[in-house]
């Protein structure tokens, strides 16, 4: 996990954070998502986290307090979705992951055991003072209910206001809590568990002060950079959407003009499909970024120029260096050959980046050719593909049989410091 954090490349103009933040996953919440978020963050099963919260509750309710505080301070993290998925989610066209019935049953059982033990502790007289336990339990449940109503948006609005009724009520609540803590502390003296009582009083006091100082604390802790990034991104998306809609209109106009020419219609439709698909479901990667982005760009060019659909499937990715660029160039050449000469109506491109090498396969099911029959002075295949790859320490093999299609397999070594997506050494099946 740490290696992943360390290998994160800086995104855009924002420097990569040097620490990992915990989030509450919006789509996997049972109550507040705190346990799920912590489990993800710590890399442990969520059951253990829930267990820890319940065990901590036996000690003067620390578990509950910790849960509520984390609920407040861990930011809610929606899954980072492409615009198409985001919109489909918002309109109720898709449902996200949700906790399975076993998990719900497990949590309820765990909660029941927790409350049972809590009551048992109470019965033995070792818990919170008897007179206080009942009211405290009711208060905790009340706070939890209000908290639930108040989650997130309402909370942050309430916590950030520095004037108006929200401000007044917050300060009043905070002052009230501080007063309660002070009274509680002053009226209790000595006896068993005085230290724990003091701690409880302190926690209540801190909560009260927190409420009063809320806006400032909140501003301090609130991730402003994140908000800014979000705003910039949504503006960008609006721009892209406008541009795309515009280009859809242009394409439709062109389609009407060229309705008789099937090839033109197909090309236009295909290009428009690609643009929309990239925007809706793709990543916002730029051609200069990586092997996959560059391959997709090359495929799009070939598709436009030769009117043959080129499908790119990629596993793993690598940044563009000299070797990888050469691989992309060679792959583009292979795609052009396939589109121009094979006579097939589609070209499949598959790229896989492992720890040691990046591979690209370009395949068609067209006429094929006899490699040996190509004259030495034909530079297309030998010069642009084989020689180019070999200059960069890689290998390129071409398999083709007349009538059986052609597959060009190319691979170049990649530098070791990339995040490997595959660590098992695999024997290559290219011949």
């Amino acid at each position, binding site marked *: 996990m740490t290696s*992943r954090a360390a*290998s*994160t490349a800086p995104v855009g103009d924002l420097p990569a954070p040097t620490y990992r933040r915990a989030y509450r996953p919006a789509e996997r919440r049972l109550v507040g998502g705190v346990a799920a978020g912590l489990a*993800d963050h710590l890399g442990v*099963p969520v059951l253990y986290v829930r267990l820890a919260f319940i065990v901590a509750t036996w000690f003067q309710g620390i578990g509950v307090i910790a849960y509520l505080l984390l609920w407040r301070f861990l930011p809610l993290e929606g*899954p*980072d*979705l*492409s615009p*198409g*998925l985001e919109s*489909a989610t918002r*309109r*109720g*066209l*898709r*449902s*996200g*992951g949700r906790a399975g019935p076993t998990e719900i049953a497990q949590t309820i059982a765990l909660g029941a055991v927790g409350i049972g033990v809590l009551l048992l502790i109470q019965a033995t007289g070792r818990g919170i003072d008897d007179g206080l336990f009942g009211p405290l339990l009711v208060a905790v449940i009340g706070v939890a209910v209000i908290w639930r109503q108040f989650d997130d948006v309402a909370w942050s609005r309430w916590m950030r206001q520095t004037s108006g009724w929200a401000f007044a009520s917050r300060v009043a609540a905070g002052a009230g809590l501080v007063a309660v803590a002070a009274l509680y502390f002053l009226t209790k003296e000595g006896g068993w568990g005085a230290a724990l009582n003091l701690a409880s009083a302190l926690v209540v006091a801190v909560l009260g002060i927190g409420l009063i100082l809320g806006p400032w604390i909140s501003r301090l802790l609130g991730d402003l950079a994140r908000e800014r990034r979000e705003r910039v991104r949504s503006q960008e998306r609006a721009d892209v959407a406008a541009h795309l809609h515009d280009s859809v209109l242009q394409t439709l106009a062109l389609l009407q003009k060229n309705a008789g020419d099937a090839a033109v219609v197909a090309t236009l439709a295909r290009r428009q*499909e690609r643009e929309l*698909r990239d925007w*809706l*479901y793709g990543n916002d990667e730029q051609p200069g970024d*990586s092997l996959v982005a560059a391959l997709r760009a090359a495929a799009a060019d070939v598709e436009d120029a030769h009117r043959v659909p080129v*499908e790119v*499937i*990629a*596993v*793993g*990715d690598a940044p563009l260096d000299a070797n990888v660029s050469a691989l992309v160039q060679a792959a583009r050449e292979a795609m052009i050959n396939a589109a121009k000469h094979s006579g097939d109506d589609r070209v*499949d491109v*598959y790229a*896989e980046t492992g720890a040691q090498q990046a591979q690209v*396969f370009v*395949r068609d099911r067209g006429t094929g050719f006899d490699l040996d029959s190509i004259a030495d002075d034909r530079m297309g295949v030998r010069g642009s593909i084989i020689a180019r790859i070999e200059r960069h320490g890689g290998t390129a093999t071409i398999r083709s049989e007349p009538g059986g299609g052609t*597959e060009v397999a190319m691979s170049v070594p990649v530098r070791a410091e990339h*995040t490997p*997506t*595959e*660590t*098992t050494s*695999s*024997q290559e*099946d290219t011949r």
Partner: protein
Amino acid sequence: MTPLRIAIVDDHAMFRTGVKAEIDGRVDVVGEADDVESAVAMIAQTSPDVVLLDVHMPGGGGLEVIRRLHVRHPDTKFLALSVSDAAEDVIGIIRAGARGYVTKNISGPELFDAIERVAGGDAVFSPRLAGFVLDAFAGTIEIAQVDEDLDRLTEREREVMRLIARGYAYKEVAKELFISIKTVETHVSSVLRKLQLSSRHELTRWANDRRLI
């Protein structure tokens, strides 16, 4: 042989019409639906052999349809057919129990082939799905992981997936690896099973990793 009984669930009427026109005659389209509620009712009533299921649909999407029907109708087989090729959708619907996934620009004969295969109990992997699966299972997993054999693809399964991702048809995969088509189908089905059963933890991590690439 009686033709296969098919249901088409998609919120775009035009698309349903198009699919019907393409596969009609070879299969028997017994029902259509355009949202989750009507789909659940229609499938429960007609119990088709295969449901062509759109991923994005009013009422919670294809995922919701599978969730509601999976327990009561374990025999109904779902083939996801979507315009979305986002990994989240694809992997999500497969993990919910769909037997295969193809994108909507699939040709008529290919779609018919996929329907037959799903009806016969096999899995259908498009090149894109094979790519996602390779991606999802690419990382090594700690040895301590309990369901270790589930969370890993065998070298042979990986080879089969890789060839499918490269655009090979099952027949060509068999020829390439010198195995029978039946064996290819066995490998593909076992990959699907692993994908559906492997631990939530591992795939969550894959999803996290993807964002960072």
